């Protein structure tokens, strides 16, 4: 087991005796890093979590914000290690978990996003062929897992990311975000109120799935979690999950459910103790009533099994019949497994014998650590490296190479495997800066994106993490929406290493500061530590999931240059900032340099200008400028509309610096020349005109839009080993 000696002593004090085997297993999973956040909690508590839109902040199954008169639940989760072991099922069950989180708040899940990170693909030639082939296999599997599970649930997958860096070869990141909606009074906390109320277990039978999964897989590195100790793989059953969604929502709508809790990490043990602790009640659980898939299961196995697709529902005795009838209607297993008590104790029996008897609240009240942190010495060395004075020999070729990078190329190969339209709410589909969703019951629409720039965070975790929030903010703003809240998934290496802890602390501090300035409180999040294989941790990867509100009557503009003759404008000012850029990575093979500066005040000011212009209806197109710089934004704008442009270079920088720098707070827009003045007071440059069928950057490069489109659209499928469709 993974408890330390001190932690074991603490349990003895709580119980006043030695714990038995089942109790020890319960504390061991509940006090694991994954469940207890013991290394991160003292830092997370400083994040700003209040704001005019926030209804439920951190600490619940999902954060909840208010949009018009309805509630929107948001949650971002990681399923990294299971997806490395078995990509299809790992990713699938990751979706299952985050969907149940949102469901536990009383909300109907209406959208998914999947920020994914892998090691390089074979075509990139960056890593050994076998490693690259394994990476390709992981991408294929993860995408197919998300596709099969999410599509079956009938929840559209409307966005996400797929990025590739060497550091993820031994440890891919599979994060999944879910958005749900409910009427405001339907939002509930997952609590077990009311002694005498019955405890129902719904869904799949319990097997030995992932016993110790949270502690073994998510709270240790791979080398420590040797193959033979790994829990058995959990297979997702999206059909049962779909039935759970319908049955739970029906029970909640009928007023039958006092509280609803998902069974995730640490299974029954976590769901029972958490709901009881929140209500300051206790609970008696009879394991004999738990339907099981395998014979001879021990109490600790039943209590900590992570079998998927199960929910706990607290129901008043008088309503048990009605609740079971709903399960019967949906052909869903359901059993009464216990009762809420007023003792504060979680008492578990099997065959009439007490097999565990612990204070319910103590399981969630684990130890807290303030782990030591040290800035690694290599940071300054990397930052001092020069990535600026290496222009390419041929600019057109460099651009084609850049847009063929799997990081930059269109990801339609991925999102066309996802049902991104079901529910008829997807107003802006995947493939652009952010997705826009209609919300049932609201006039406003919701813009949503996930973002992280791990190279930036690797080179400078503090400034890099600020960039992550700022880029998300820019993506939402580019659709004309006003960002209102974030959730996050903080993927890091082992917190037991001082440099990882330092990266973590820097990043959390930065996210907090950025969210304060940008007006996007943190509604919740997830910490995934121990993402490392061997001695190298992944790049610090704080993934930001951000939502914004698009007011009624404002129409988002497309990314592409829609109208011949429009002027092309860069809002913002480009600096020589190639540090950490896609250019440095893909063309120079370097992840180094000083990352771009960031002025959050300027970020807000420019976004205000862009939003106002979209609201006025004067923009023909709008796109944020990020990875790959101005050059890539121009390509995307041309390719999306199938139109060319003639661009006059700016002379304050060398051509490659101007084209490929990833200077923050910039947008590429097109509009009628006569409307230029209406943009208002903002730093901007008129770059040229939308015209013809070629992207002409005078004196620098000329490539037809057809050729650009061929690279941009087909590169990803080719890198995955498929011929372009």
């Amino acid at each position, binding site marked *: 087991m993974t408890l330390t000696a001190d932690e074991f002593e603490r349990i003895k004090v709580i119980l006043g005796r030695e714990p038995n085997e089942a109790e020890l297993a319960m504390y061991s999973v509940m006090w694991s890093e994954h469940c207890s956040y013991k290394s991160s909690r003292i830092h997370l508590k400083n994040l700003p979590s209040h704001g005019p839109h926030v209804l439920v902040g951190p600490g619940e199954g999902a954060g909840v914000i208010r949009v018009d008169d309805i509630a929107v639940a948001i949650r971002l989760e990681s399923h990294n290690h299971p997806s490395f072991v078995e990509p299809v099922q790992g990713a699938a069950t990751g979706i299952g978990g985050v969907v149940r989180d949102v469901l536990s708040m009383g909300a109907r899940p209406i959208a998914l996003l999947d920020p994914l990170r892998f090691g390089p693909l074979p075509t990139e030639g960056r890593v050994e062929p076998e490693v690259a082939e394994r990476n390709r296999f992981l991408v294929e599997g993860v995408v197919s897992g998300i596709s099969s599970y999410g599509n079956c649930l009938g929840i559209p997958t409307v966005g996400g990311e797929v990025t590739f860096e060497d550091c993820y070869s031994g440890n891919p990141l599979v994060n999944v975000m879910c958005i749900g909606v409910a009427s405001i009074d339907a939002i509930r906390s997952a609590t077990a109120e009311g002694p005498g109320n019955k405890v129902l277990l719904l869904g*799949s*039978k319990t097997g*030995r799935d992932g016993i110790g999964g949270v502690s073994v897989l998510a709270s240790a590195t791979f080398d420590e979690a040797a193959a033979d100790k790994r829990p*058995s793989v959990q297979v*997702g059953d999206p*059909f049962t999950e779909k039935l759970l969604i319908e049955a739970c929502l029906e029970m909640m709508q009928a007023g039958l459910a006092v509280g609803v809790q998902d069974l995730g990490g640490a299974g029954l043990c976590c769901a029972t103790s958490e709901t009881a602790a929140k209500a300051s009640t206790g609970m008696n659980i009879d394991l004999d009533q738990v339907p099981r898939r*395998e014979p001879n299961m021990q109490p600790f196995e039943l209590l900590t099994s992570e*079998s998927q697709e199960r929910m706990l529902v607290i129901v008043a005795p008088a309503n048990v019949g009605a609740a079971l009838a709903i399960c019967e209607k949906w052909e869903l297993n359901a059993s009464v497994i216990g009762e809420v008590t007023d003792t504060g104790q979680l008492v578990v029996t099997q065959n009439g014998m007490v097999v565990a008897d612990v204070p319910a609240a103590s399981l969630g009240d684990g130890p807290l650590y303030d782990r030591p942190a040290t800035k690694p010495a290599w940071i300054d060395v990397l930052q001092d490296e020069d990535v600026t004075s290496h222009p390419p020999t041929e600019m057109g070729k460099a651009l084609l190479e850049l847009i063929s990078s799997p990081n930059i190329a269109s990801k339609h190969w991925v999102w066309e495997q996802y049902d991104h339209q079901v529910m008829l709410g997807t107003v802006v589909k995947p493939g652009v800066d952010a997705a826009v969703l209609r919300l049932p019951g609201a006039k406003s629409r919701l813009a949503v994106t996930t973002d992280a720039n791990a190279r930036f965070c690797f080179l400078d975790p503090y400034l890099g993490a600020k960039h992550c929030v700022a880029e998300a903010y820019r993506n939402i703003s580019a659709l004309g929406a006003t960002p209102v809240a974030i959730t996050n998934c903080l993927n890091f290496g082992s917190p037991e290493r001082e440099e990882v802890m330092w990266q973590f602390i820097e990043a959390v501090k930065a996210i907090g500061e950025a969210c304060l300035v940008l007006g996007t409180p943190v509604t919740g999040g997830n910490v995934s530590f121990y993402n490392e294989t061997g001695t190298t941790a992944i790049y610090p990867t704080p993934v930001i999931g951000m939502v914004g509100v698009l007011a009624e009557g404002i129409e988002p503009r497309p990314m592409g240059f829609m109208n011949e003759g429009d002027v092309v404008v860069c809002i913002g000012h480009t600096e020589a900032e190639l540090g950490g850029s896609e250019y440095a990575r893909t063309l120079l093979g370097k992840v180094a340099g000083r990352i771009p500066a960031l002025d959050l005040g300027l970020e807000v000011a420019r976004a205000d200008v862009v939003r106002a212009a979209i609201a006025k209806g004067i923009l023909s197109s709008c796109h944020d400028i990020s990875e790959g710089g101005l050059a890539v934004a121009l390509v995307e704008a041309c390719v999306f509309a199938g139109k060319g442009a003639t661009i006059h270079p700016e002379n304050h920088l060398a051509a490659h610096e101007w084209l490929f720098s990833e200077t923050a707070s910039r947008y590429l827009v097109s509009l009628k020349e006569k409307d230029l003045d209406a943009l208002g007071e903002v730093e901007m440059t008129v770059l040229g005109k939308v015209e013809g069928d070629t992207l002409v950057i005078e004196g620098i490069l000329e490539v037809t839009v057809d050729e650009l489109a061929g690279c941009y659209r087909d590169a990803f499928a080719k890198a995955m080993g498929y011929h372009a469709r």
Partner: protein
Amino acid sequence: MKFHASIDVMPRTEISDPQGQTIERALPGIGFESVEEVRVGKRITLTVTAEDEQEARNILNGACERFLANPVIEDYEIHL
């Protein structure tokens, strides 16, 4: 020499098989009460060219380990 072979790939016993379970639950409604323990896997048939049966078996073992089965969640059996 050419050998005809069939390979049975089944979900490992300790791993849940939602498909099998769902079929099992549906059977009574269709008039088949007496069927239980349904599990669904794959059956692959193929021909393999090899010097002898042992070589054929070795080839197929390799193909199963690396490609045809997913050893993390599936067991396989080769019939020559």
